[in-house]
């Protein structure tokens, strides 16, 4: 212990005497460890952390697939949920659906809620902190006037008063009795305040077998394996098909499937996070190489001191231990600063991450992450300090004590490390470059609308006053009038959803005269219900025919519109205006009229700017009433003006997501922007660290060669020749790194090929730009030492021994 403390004391003292070295090394390590720890926090929080439910390995996500439509991981209907309860392999099962509701308190507020069936909490084995969960009877309409509140709502809205159980809360205009408080820490797919029963009608649970919208989870009985459950679900699904042939057309090839519940949450995030984690590990590797390089230079400077230590009896192990202790002290400071960097980085990360990264807001530096940081610190110390320590401990005593220089081995190793840094930087820069070029291509793609100068707001009227189509339609019409009346508004329109807001409704329908191939089901496409001036408000061009007008009211002939992709798909080379379609659902006995297509709108890339425009058909909202509408106004108007005007229509109804259309577009790009931004950060970091490495090696080489350079100058070399000599050596070093890096990047780019758009993984322009950038960086980083070399005073250099 005495020895350890003394080694630590000497190490700290030695580092204090060389502040430039210490600060450089600690910063490099802090950046590497900090960035890695921040990304690991996300990986741990999203991919590795337990979901927080007891006996998680028995939880499954039950989905439907229609292999005939190449459709997987789909939802189930309420009758299917009821059927599933009979499966002996499942101990419990339950359904879930997220939605929002208007909370009528002091002022109308839209809150996140979830609808869940009886069995949902039993499946997760979540027991309420106070009160109870839902009974089977409460699944049904009439008994559903109950609610569970989350711990978050209990704390924030109810002052943690247990007597809240039994009190009433009004959501969507319906008073509900709070029957329980869910425990602290419970969440399922995000934070929300209330859990409500579905309130199904008898028709919902007995008849609406084709209305699939439910996320279903189950808990396998002990001893049941996933394979066993798959077999049971196959048999069970076949029985349903046999019993209800009309609901499961053979051409759909419908089947039930199950996967571990974890997949439900992490599948979409896994690939980008793994790529980012790999990228940040490369940054850490560069940081380690940098510090190793600094330590090698330092060991070279300390050659005589180490030789003295060896001469007076320090064995190799002892010297290695002393140098490693110094490495550990550096790592300790690097880790402390790195944790701060990670904390800051994580905040920035959460602020820019897409919502799809599940529960990201709850990702934070915890014990496991800090443990990772410490472990990482230990590993990096071994990585960056061991090789220099081992090398420095192999001392040529006789030469070193006379003040001899270190051998060519150390110089070669340092050069190799710099070449490796350049190579790794090239991999990261190429990755970032390819994503950047893809992103530029995406941005250059026409969205089909003009988001500039338009603002949108979401209306979802709920409550007793809005439980019929007429009331909702009247509300939407009043809201639209109020929006149009705002001073400065040029045009106001509304649609059930708008392009790029991520809310798409699909509908199966019939196209008159469209010949289906054998076994081909009726088409299912995106349906959008819109009000007059919708197309003008978002500036979606009408290419043929006309847009809907006020004349297309409930009494007018039924009409529809389609987009270009629809025409390409179903009527290529033909005139769509005048063709007819028919919506195939609706209550039994109700008339299902054909609707005449009156116009063709330009394409919008609803599935993402980097994806082809999907076929869409539009219906007038007055002829097919929507549950909610997004109002869009164009003109010189602020979001607060729009909110105020719409709130005034009915102060009991919340007005949500009031934002410029450009923000909606931005949000739709976040999935692509997020990894790009991070990879850009990592690439810039890598470039900076490499620049420091190149500078360090060049400066050290110049210092080592001062006498030689002095001789060159003395015998007639010009400053320019010496400058070129030094720069040339640095460029050769960088070139070696580029050679290795291009080979590595070519392999690494395949990892991100799924995220590339309009750019090949071997895009020569990107590689040329990256190589040029690295060349410039090398020249800049080595310019200072090269200039210093060119200005060496030959006499001083020759006198220096």
């Amino acid at each position, binding site marked *: 212990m005495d*020895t350890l403390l*003394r080694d630590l004391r000497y190490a700290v003292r030695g580092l204090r*005497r060389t502040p430039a070295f210490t600060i450089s090394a600690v910063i490099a390590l802090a950046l590497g460890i900090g960035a890695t720890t921040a990304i690991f926090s996300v990986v741990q929080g999203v991919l590795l952390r337990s979901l927080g439910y007891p006996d998680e390995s028995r939880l499954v996500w039950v989905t439907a697939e229609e292999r005939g439509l190449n459709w997987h991981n789909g939802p189930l209907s309420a009758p299917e949920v009821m059927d599933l309860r009979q499966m002996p392999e499942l101990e419990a099962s339950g359904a879930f659906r997220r939605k929002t509701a208007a909370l009528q308190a002091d002022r109308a507020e839209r809150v996140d809620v979830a609808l869940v069936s009886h069995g949902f909490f039993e499946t997760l084995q979540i027991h309420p902190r106070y009160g109870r969960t839902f009974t089977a009877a409460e699944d049904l309409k009439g008994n559903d006037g109950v609610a569970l509140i989350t711990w978050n709502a209990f704390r924030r809205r109810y002052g943690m008063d247990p007597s809240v159980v039994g009190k009433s809360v009004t959501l969507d205009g319906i008073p509900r009795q709070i029957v329980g408080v869910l425990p602290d820490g419970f969440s399922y797919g995000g934070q929300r305040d209330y859990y409500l029963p579905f309130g199904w009608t008898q028709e919902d649970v007995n008849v609406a077998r084709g209305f699939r919208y439910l996320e279903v989870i189950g808990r396998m009985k002990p001893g049941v394996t996933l394979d066993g459950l798959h077999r049971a679900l196959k048999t069970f699904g076949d029985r349903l098909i046999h019993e209800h042939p009309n609901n499961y057309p053979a051409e759909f090839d419908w089947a039930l499937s199950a996967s571990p519940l974890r997949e439900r949450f992490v599948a979409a995030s896994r690939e980008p996070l793994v790529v980012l984690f790999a990228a940040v590990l490369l940054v850490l590797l560069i940081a380690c190489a940098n510090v190793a390089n600094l330590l090698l230079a330092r060991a070279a400077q300390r050659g005589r*001191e180490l030789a*003295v230590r060896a*001469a*007076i*009896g320090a064995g190799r192990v002892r010297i290695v231990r002393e140098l490693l202790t110094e490495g550990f002290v550096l790592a300790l400071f690097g880790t402390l600063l790195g944790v701060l960097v990670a904390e800051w980085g994580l905040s920035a990360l959460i602020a820019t991450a897409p919502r799809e990264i599940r529960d990201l807001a709850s990702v934070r530096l915890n014990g496991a992450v800090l443990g990772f940081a410490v472990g990482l610190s230990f590993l990096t110390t071994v990585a960056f300090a061991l090789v220099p320590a081992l090398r420095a401990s192999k001392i040529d005593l*006789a030469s070193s*004590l006379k003040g001899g220089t270190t051998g060519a081995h150390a110089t070669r190793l340092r050069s190799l490390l710099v070449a490796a840094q350049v190579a790794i930087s090239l991999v990261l820069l190429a990755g970032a470059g390819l994503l950047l070029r893809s992103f530029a291509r995406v941005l250059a793609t026409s969205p089909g609308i003009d988001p500039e100068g338009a603002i949108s707001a979401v209306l979802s009227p709920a409550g007793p006053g809005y439980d019929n189509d007429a009331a909702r339609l009247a509300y939407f019409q009043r809201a639209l009038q109020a929006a149009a009346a705002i001073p400065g508004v040029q045009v106001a329109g509304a649609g059930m959803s708008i392009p790029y807001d991520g809310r798409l409704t699909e509908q199966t329908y019939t196209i008159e005269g469209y010949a289906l191939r054998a076994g081909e089901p009726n088409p299912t496409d995106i349906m959008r219900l819109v009000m007059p001036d919708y197309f003008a408000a978002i500036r979606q061009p009408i290419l043929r025919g006309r847009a809907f007008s006020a004349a297309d009211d409930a009494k007018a002939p039924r009409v529809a519109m389609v987009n270009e992709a629809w025409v390409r798909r179903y009527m290529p080379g033909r005139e769509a205006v005048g063709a007819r379609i028919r919506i195939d659902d609706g209550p039994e006995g109700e008339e299902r009229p054909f609707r005449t297509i009156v116009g063709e709108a330009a394409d919008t890339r609803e599935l993402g700017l980097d994806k082809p425009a999907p076929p869409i058909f539009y219906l007038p909202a007055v002829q097919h009433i929507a549950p909610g509408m997004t109002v869009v106004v164009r003109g010189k108007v602020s979001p607060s003006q729009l909110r105020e005007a719409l709130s005034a229509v009915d102060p009991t109804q919340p007005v949500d997501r009031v934002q410029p259309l450009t923000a909606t577009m931005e949000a739709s790009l976040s999935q692509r922007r997020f990894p790009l931004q991070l990879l850009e950060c990592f690439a810039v970091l890598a470039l900076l660290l490499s620049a420091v490495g190149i500078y360090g090696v060049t400066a050290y080489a110049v210092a080592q060669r001062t006498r030689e350079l002095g001789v060159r100058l003395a015998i007639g070399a010009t400053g320019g020749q010496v400058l070129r000599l030094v720069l040339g050596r640095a460029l050769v070093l960088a070139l070696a790194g580029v050679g290795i890096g291009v080979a590595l990047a070519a392999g690494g780019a395949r990892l991100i090929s799924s995220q590339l758009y309009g750019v090949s993984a071997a895009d020569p322009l990107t590689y040329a730009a990256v190589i040029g950038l690295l060349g410039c960086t090398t020249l800049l980083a080595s310019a200072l030492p090269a200039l210093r070399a060119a200005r060496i005073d030959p006499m001083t250099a020759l006198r220096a021994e």
Partner: protein
Amino acid sequence: MNDALIEMHNVEKVFLTDEVETHALAGIQLTVKKGEWVAIVGPSGSGKTTLLAILGLLDTATGGTFLIDGKPVLDLSPTDRAHVRNRHIGFIFQSFNLIGDLTVFENVELPLTYRGMPAADRKKRVEDALARVGMSHRARHMPGQLSGGQQQRVAVARAVAGDPLILLADEPTGNLDSKNGQAVMKLLSDLHQAGSTLIMVTHDPAYARLATRTVSLFDGRIVEETGSSAA
């Protein structure tokens, strides 16, 4: 009873550089007895420093036999060589070679810490050594705060603190002015009087005459020995 501390028979050192063999030392026969003070002299390039490096186990001979206190040392592992250097050899270098990050006390203490000596024993030994060279009052100073002569006295203290069998001094006055040089030589003389065995490389004939025996090297060979080999 054989009281030879150092015995060298036919020791040679050959450097290989780009297929060229350079014989730095050849056929060295040297015996040093306990209590002797041997001066090694010779012109530049004669092999003085190479011989001293081999004597101090800083370098290895390429041929011959070499015994310290009756034990062969040429084939020792690096760890064992470090062990011998730590316990049996004390070094005094021309350029002092004190460690700038450590205080005077810590510099002198360093070989004892490598020996694993308990702290209390170390403290006593360091204080004794510093007292012998008259540097007790500078124990908390850093080497950079000392004059050249003072630094060399600290280096001597470090060399003797571990009570080694042999003291090796490589041009101990080479970096000092004449006054400080004489003071250091007086110190070495006192150590010899107190029973220490010294081997010293020097250019200066006046200092060489202080030794009990002088070994002259030329082109890597011992060409002359003067003085008595008796202690």
